[in-house]
């Protein structure tokens, strides 16, 4: 028991959880609106897209890589899907759009995967390059413009609700979007993959020591390739859901999300150098970022102070978990050693 407790204090999840909790309480105190049903549903719904992105980012960072191309990838696939279906006058359900965009996502993910997995090029460089390429394809070749009308099936998927939460006091209602179900499903799937499949353990192993992973019999190249394919698929799914939820496709407004998502994942205790981190922590970190971004007004931070607040939060939030590492370092813990070697 004591030992378990000690282990717990060495992890960063409890700290990030406390930070999230503290923030929630602050919002509650400032606005009295945090722990209301509709607000919680709002947060959950705002979590869908960043959450999906964060899952992919988490897996990539655990493998020792990094992906900065997912917003461009998601933008390209969701734009292409919406545009093609609009042009074709598609009126059917949501399945075709989902399949289409995920297939494209897999293809673009494979593009990353070939360079990173099979050629072994540094992930950062490859995804920087491919992000530019995807963006260029979307804006240049597809000549993207904002699409304010989306196919019927996508429209109704975006507006139909799992349930509707009503605030008994103000009477405000919030829809829990169907997309949340998708997010939850992907989350469970990823949890299963990372914990219960050798593909997932391979991702951890590669992040820890790629050469050893190869020698141990993991197909390291194939694993990395498939990983980027998977990430491409989740990212494109996120892009499509975002389009549905927004009821329109704005080709560029996901671009630039990557840094915040990565920040959330690392905030949640995932080692940027790979090999260590948990999906729980990753979700907590992302949740923290989402709550902050969607509660400025509730806390009562004036708009012009927003960036100051977010910046300070990132620094303090990461500072706290970084401090854990410094402490672990003093007692000869391993995380810090890994960091020193690979940083």
């Amino acid at each position, binding site marked *: 028991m004591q030992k378990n407790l000690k282990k717990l204090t060495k992890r960063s999840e409890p700290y990030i959880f406390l930070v999230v909790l503290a923030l929630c309480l602050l919002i509650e105190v400032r606005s009295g609106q945090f722990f209301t049903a509709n607000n919680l549903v709002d947060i959950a719904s705002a979590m869908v897209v960043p959450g999906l992105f964060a899952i992919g980012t988490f897996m990539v960072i655990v493998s020792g890589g990094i992906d900065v191309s997912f917003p461009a990838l998601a933008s390209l696939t969701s734009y292409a899907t919406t545009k093609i279906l609009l042009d074709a006058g598609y009126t059917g359900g949501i399945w075709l759009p989902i399949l289409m965009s995920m297939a494209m996502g897999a293809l673009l993910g494979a593009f990353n995967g070939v360079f990173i997995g099979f050629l072994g090029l540094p992930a950062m460089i490859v995804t920087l390059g491919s992000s530019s390429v995807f963006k260029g394809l979307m804006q240049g070749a597809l000549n993207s413009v904002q699409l304010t009308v989306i196919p019927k099936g996508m429209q109704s998927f975006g507006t139909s609700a799992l349930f509707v939460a009503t605030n008994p006091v103000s009477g405000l209602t919030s829809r829990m979007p169907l997309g949340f179900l998708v997010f939850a499903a992907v989350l469970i799937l990823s949890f299963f993959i990372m914990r219960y499949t050798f593909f997932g*353990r391979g991702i951890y192993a590669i992040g820890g020591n790629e050469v050893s992973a190869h020698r141990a019999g993991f197909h390291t190249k194939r694993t990395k390739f498939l990983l980027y394919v998977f990430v491409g698929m989740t990212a494109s799914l996120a892009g499509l859901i975002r389009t549905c939820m927004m009821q329109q496709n704005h080709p560029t407004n996901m671009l630039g999300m990557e840094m915040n998502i990565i920040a959330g994942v690392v905030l949640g205790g995932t080692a940027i150098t790979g090999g260590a981190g948990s999906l729980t922590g990753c979700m907590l970190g992302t949740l923290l970022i989402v709550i902050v971004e969607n509660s400025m007004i509730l806390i009562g931070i004036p708009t012009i102070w927003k960036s100051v607040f977010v910046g300070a939060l990132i620094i303090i939030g990461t500072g706290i978990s970084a401090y854990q590492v410094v402490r672990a370092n003093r007692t000869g813990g391993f995380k810090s*050693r890994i960091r020193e070697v690979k940083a």
Partner: protein
Amino acid sequence: MSDILLRASGIHKSFVGVHALKGVSLEIAPGEIHCLAGENGCGKSTLIKIISGVYQPDAGSIEFDGKRLDKITPIDAILLGIQVIYQDFSVFPNLTVMENLALNSELSNKRKVVNWKRMRQIAEEAVAKINFQVDLDALVGTLSVAQKQMVAISRALMFNARLIIMDEPTTALTRKEVQALFKVIMQLKAQGIAILFVSHKLNEVFEISERFTIFRNGELVVTGQTKDLDAAKFSYYMTGRAFSEEQFTATKLGDKPLLEVKNLGLAGAFSDISFSLRSGEILGITGLLDSGRSELALALFGIRQADSGEILIKGKKTAITCPQDAINNGLGLVPEDRLSEGLFLPRSIADNLIIAEVDRLANRFKVFDREKRQEEVDRLMKEFAIASPNANNACQTLSGGNQQRVVLGKWLACGLDILVLNGPTVGVDIGSKHDIHAILQNLAREGMGIIIISDDLPEVIQNCSRVIILKEGKIVQELDAAEATEQAILSKMM
């Protein structure tokens, strides 16, 4: 069935610019313990990687169990029953001991889904086989070097292996563990498993192996029965030269102590350590794993900070809170793990050599005096006989022995008074080891104070004028050269 389990013949392998293996052959019979020896860089590891499917040979053939192997992958090799314990252990620092142990076997069974219960069972069985005590849920990164190696060994042993290849398995093991390992090896042999054992340590080769093969410079020099071999022949085959080790005696002892350590303690590592070191002497510190010897070295060098006691350098009380303090006071440390702590592998040999004294090669604006820098690099390359055509080559192109010399050279370049070496010849071949000992002895004669931390007892006995024995973080005995015999040391160490 043939009576040859593995037959490699005419193997060639080239890397860019290096012909690593030039048509070597090797035969191993079932249940045989075969020793592969050779200087650093002669191609042993390369051959192993070819046998285990990590590399493909350029020419030549490999037969295993009568079947010719073509284009195999590591997993194929594992499935065939070939297991390798690599020189760098190939463990996953970020995963638990349990997973490290069980991953390979599960993978070789082509499992796709993880069964944690079964994994734990596998791991428990694996450690039980060699009676290795370890917390299965600990992260391997938090283990000591020797424990990591034990993990690697237990992992290899649990397979239904036909051939187990060990690339220098004992480098980081203490005597006790080596004995345990040998016992296991004998058990395996009894089960008909063949062992290919790569080692630089003469006594081990004689103790365990039945047959041996020696490579030099990518070629086969000799192969035969170990009983026909003696120490002199062994070194001669390996190096192509003959030499004898010299017993060190301190000739020019300084009269005042260079370094005095008084009641030094560090919670959880060592306590109440007191000793002194005079110029011109070589002090040996030995002890089992976890006896606190490495932590002591780190504390002297300022990487860890002692929490009680004091350190006096040249009679002056000195606070050493970081490596710079140590260096400024004329104390240097050759670390235990030269790859991760001692060297900048992708950088040039020159940079590696001069980094510790870099500020002295520059003017006061920290701009290099390029002539002085070049001279210094040339001097060090020559003085330490570093075998490379160009000091601007990357350090990773050097063999292990040469790399170790670079680490040594780096410190000696700074003109230190005191040098602490932690495992100075771990994994170094006989030739280089001899050279390094000669260098150290010379340095001592020139007035340096040297501390060798090692559990290679012959090394300690031969080179040290005094030996301190650590046990469980305390000094249990101090012996002088005359008293220091293997037997005497061992009896105190255990």
